[in-house]
């Protein structure tokens, strides 16, 4: 049951109820009749009033006065036109006003109208033309569509004629002695019109009933429609509410899943760090060659199993992050040849010994530096080559790169082709689906989670490209192609082969540090990792002190500064009790303590890295610990810290000659490549262009051109590190992230100011360097 408009307030519509439909049709008909009767009543009220006035006017015109010689008085017909007509009209007009639509009203009106006709005929001296008023009045009364009214009116005419025929026949029949049936003749003519009018009334009433019926049906249809719409709207609202609740529940569950994954990541990686690390310790401790082969084999098995477990965890985490939309890719300057060679050197040991050859080469000349995400690119290629290695028992695996400039935009095509088992079309159809492999036998025989290709494709798509199966035939091998948009770095050069890069790689590996000198504070709450990392660092020659949480680390750092024996480097875990690594870094930066900080985290994602850098860390290392990578990182930052302090010391001397602000001198940046004479000119050019770049960015910010500002920030992010200013790259990266995350103008302005400050520091540092060189030259010249 639903409500209806106010005009139908006395009636309530039930959907699909025939009885109610009939009742409603009757009500509508009645309603229409009442409206029609009331409207006609009002019309007759006006007509009677007009007739009254017209009658007075006619009486005044025809018989204004009665005479007696030369004297006169108002003619009785005038009085009759005024008072008798007023008496005739008074009641029907009053009823039309106060009781419109009532039966009595229209019958009274009928009597009055016909009486008016009679008076008009009388006052006109019985003129035959005046009789037309009767017929006109009957037609007018037919507007009521009520035949009873016509009967009443006709009865008045009949009675009038009957009386007149009895007492004054000449007044109606025009002769003194009419036949007795003359009154019937007159009444008959009236009845003739009545029959037509009554027929018309009945037909009209039937039509009104049909209209009322159709209106009721229409109303019912509308009501049913509205009822159903209302029901559906309510259902939709309910569904919407349920969806909202489900969405909220899903978001909560997703949040819980993310937290669970983060915790799982930490909880699994941390012990894995210890497992893998101590495997290395066991392998390197003492003279391993004297150990029984079975023990070495056991250690290697533990190591392999740990690495596999780590790989699985990484895959699951990656896929979860991708599906949650939380995985972000970077777009930074990437040395393409180095990536290819790293994959080559990483995967070569995994190939079946002697039976499979790995060839890494360029099909076409390719730029040496591109904008891409090196981590993800390496991950994709490692995965594809790993797959190829898994399914190739003999033959070769080719890892090749090719630049395709035939399309609208140039593409980088990286192909991994093997001569392995290959796949049937049915097996190929199962590719790129999570947790799916070609068939279950693959899992039993070759292992794996079935996530690799899925992750590869998702990552490639995040980077604007794709991974596709180029071909695969059983027994002939498989070829996967990675398609990526090619964005060449500024000043990149085309290289035709990987030979020269291979030498560079070799040199780089040879330069991996084996010794460290300096004081390092390690903040780590896990006993195993604390012992392991301490072991590696101490073994490399560093002086290591440890703290179990951030607060203890802070106390040790402050004590060291007070005793003038500062630490050269702080390595801090992120998740720690009492005070975590983020807070520790933020506190140190807030106190303006200039010490390199390397974060140690099991959260290896891009956003984790960004959080570390935003908290004030200079770099990060992931768990499980890669010993060589950790030592290299430590060495780099210890040297950089010393350079910074040395430069600060130099600047301290210089500042006695320069009138620069203290803060600017203290924060001056120096390029890591400043000591390389071959690159000095390039670095000079880059530093000289910084003011202009900052000015353009400020202009874009003022003009609210966010996308252009993001492009400029992105370019500076890629270029800064390349010229030996990682701090500029990081600040530019933070600015870009702010813009891409749609943060408010205040945050963007803060990031821009921070970037501008870094650029100022670089400019100031470079100027100081130039002045120092000049000073030294001057001193040498003076001496």
């Amino acid at each position: 049951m639903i409500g209806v408009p106010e005009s139908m307030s006395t009636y309530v519509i039930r959907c699909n109820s025939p009885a109610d439909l009939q009742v409603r049709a009757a009500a509508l008909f009645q309603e229409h009749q009442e409206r029609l009767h009331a409207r006609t009543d009002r019309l007759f009220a006006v007509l009677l009033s007009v007739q009254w006035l017209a009658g007075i006017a006619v009486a005044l015109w025809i018989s204004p006065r009665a005479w007696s010689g030369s004297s006169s008085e108002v003619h009785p017909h005038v009085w009759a036109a005024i008072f008798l007509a007023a008496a005739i009209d008074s009641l029907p007009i009053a009823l039309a006003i106060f009781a419109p639509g009532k039966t009595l009203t229209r019958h009274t009106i009928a009597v009055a109208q016909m009486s008016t006709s009679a008076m008009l005929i009388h006052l006109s001296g019985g003129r035959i033309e005046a009789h037309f008023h009767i017929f006109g009045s009957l037609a007018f009364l037919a507007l009521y569509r009520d035949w009873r009214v016509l009967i009443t009116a006709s009865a008045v005419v009949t009675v009038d004629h009957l009386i007149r025929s009895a007492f004054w026949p000449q007044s109606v029949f025009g002769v003194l002695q009419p036949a007795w049936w003359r009154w019937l003749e007159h009444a008959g003519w009236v009845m003739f019109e009545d029959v037509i009018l009554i027929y018309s009334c009945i037909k009209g009433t039937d039509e009104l009933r049909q209209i009322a019926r159709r209106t009721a049906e229409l109303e019912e249809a509308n009501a049913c429609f509205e009822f159903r719409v209302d029901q559906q709207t309510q259902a939709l609202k309910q569904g919407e509410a349920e969806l909202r609740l489900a969405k909220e529940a899903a978001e909560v569950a997703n949040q819980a899943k993310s937290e669970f994954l983060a915790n799982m990541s930490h909880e699994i990686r941390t012990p894995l760090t210890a497992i893998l690390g101590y495997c290395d310790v066991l392998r390197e401790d003492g003279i391993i060659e004297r150990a029984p082969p079975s023990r070495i084999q056991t250690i290697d098995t533990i190591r392999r199993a740990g690495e596999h477990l780590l790989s699985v965890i990484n895959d699951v985490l990656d896929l979860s992050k991708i599906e949650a939309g939380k995985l972000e890719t970077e777009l930074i300057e990437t040395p393409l040849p180095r990536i290819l060679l790293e994959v080559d050197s990483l995967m070569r040991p995994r190939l079946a010994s002697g039976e499979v050859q790995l060839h890494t080469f360029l099909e076409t000349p390719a730029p040496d530096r591109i904008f891409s995400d090196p981590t993800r690119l390496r991950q994709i290629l490692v995965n594809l080559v790993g797959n190829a290695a898994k399914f190739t028992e003999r033959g070769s695996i080719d890892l090749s790169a090719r630049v395709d400039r035939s399309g609208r935009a140039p593409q980088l095509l990286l192909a991994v082709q093997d001569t392995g088992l290959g796949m049937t079309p049915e097996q190929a159809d199962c590719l790129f689906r999570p947790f799916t492999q070609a068939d279950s036998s693959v899992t039993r025989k070759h292992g794996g989670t079935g996530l690799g290709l899925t992750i590869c494709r998702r990552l490639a798509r995040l980077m604007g490209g794709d991974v596709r199966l180029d071909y695969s035939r059983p027994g002939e091998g498989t070829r996967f192609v990675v398609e990526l948009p090619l964005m060449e770095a500024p000043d990149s050069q085309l290289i035709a082969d990987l030979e020269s890069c291979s030498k560079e790689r070799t040199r780089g590996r040879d330069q991996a540090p084996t010794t460290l000198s300096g004081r390092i504070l390690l903040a780590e709450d896990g006993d195993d990792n604390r012992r392991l990392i301490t072991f590696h660092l101490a073994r490399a020659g560093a002086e290591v002190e440890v703290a179990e949480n951030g607060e203890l680390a802070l106390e040790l750092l402050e004590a060291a500064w007070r005793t003038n024996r500062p630490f050269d480097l702080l390595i801090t875990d992120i998740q720690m009790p009492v005070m975590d690594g983020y807070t520790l870094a933020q506190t140190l930066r807030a106190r303006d303590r200039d010490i390199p900080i390397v974060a140690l985290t099991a959260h290896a994602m891009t956003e984790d890295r960004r959080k570390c850098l935003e908290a004030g860390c200079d770099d990060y290392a992931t768990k499980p610990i890669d010993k060589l990578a950790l030592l290299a990182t430590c060495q780099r930052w210890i040297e950089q810290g010393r350079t910074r302090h040395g430069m600060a010391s130099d600047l301290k001397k210089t500042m006695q000659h320069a009138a620069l602000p203290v803060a600017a001198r203290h924060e001056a940046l120096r390029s890591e490549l400043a000591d390389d004479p071959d690159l000095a000119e390039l670095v000079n050019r880059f530093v000289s262009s910084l003011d202009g770049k900052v000015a353009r960015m400020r202009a874009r910010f003022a003009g609210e051109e966010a996308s252009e500002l993001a492009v400029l920030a992105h370019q500076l992010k890629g270029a800064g590190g390349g010229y030996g200013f990682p701090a500029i790259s990081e600040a530019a990266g933070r600015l870009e992230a702010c813009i891409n995350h749609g943060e408010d103008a205040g945050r963007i302005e803060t990031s821009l100011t921070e970037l501008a400050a870094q650029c100022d520091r670089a400019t100031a540092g470079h100027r100081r360097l130039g002045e120092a060189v000049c000073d030294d030259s001057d001193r040498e010249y003076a001496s």
Partner: protein
Amino acid sequence: MMLVTMLTAVWLVTIVGGFAVLANHSLSPGRQHRPPRHWPAASVIACSATSASLVMFIHPDCPCALASLGELDRLIARHADRLHVSLLVYERLSNQPRRQPPPAVNGVSMILDVGGREALRFGAATSGQVALYDAAGLLQFNGGITVARGHAGDSDGTAAIDAILRGEEPAVRQTPVFGCSIVDHDRRP
């Protein structure tokens, strides 16, 4: 409801009563005197010696005179060769203007009856009164030729004149007259 019914009843009675009063007025004749049996010698109008002479007196402003004149017109149409008609129209003594000019009737000489002297000679008191004399000057009929005030149509008066002019014995030789008073001595309309 009762009040409405009573009101309706009173209303109906009022209407019927009003019509009754109206009919009573229409059917009430004016004052009437008998004309002289012989054509008055002092009259300024001459009596026809070859045909019947009909004299009609009217008040020019009487609304009922139109009906009487209409009947007179029809009489003349029927008896033009046997009837000499004189229409005397009352004319005030003073210079009061007439409301409207007296209506004309075909073939009838209209005579102004200043101060109603001729009316007094013929004993006419009410507008529309007719007196019919034969060629010898003897009164044959007097009265009105309408049955009510302002109502044209058949009447006993026209029927009597028709009969007399046809040489038949009329049903009546005197009928009531319906109209205004011609002279001031009778102010009854």
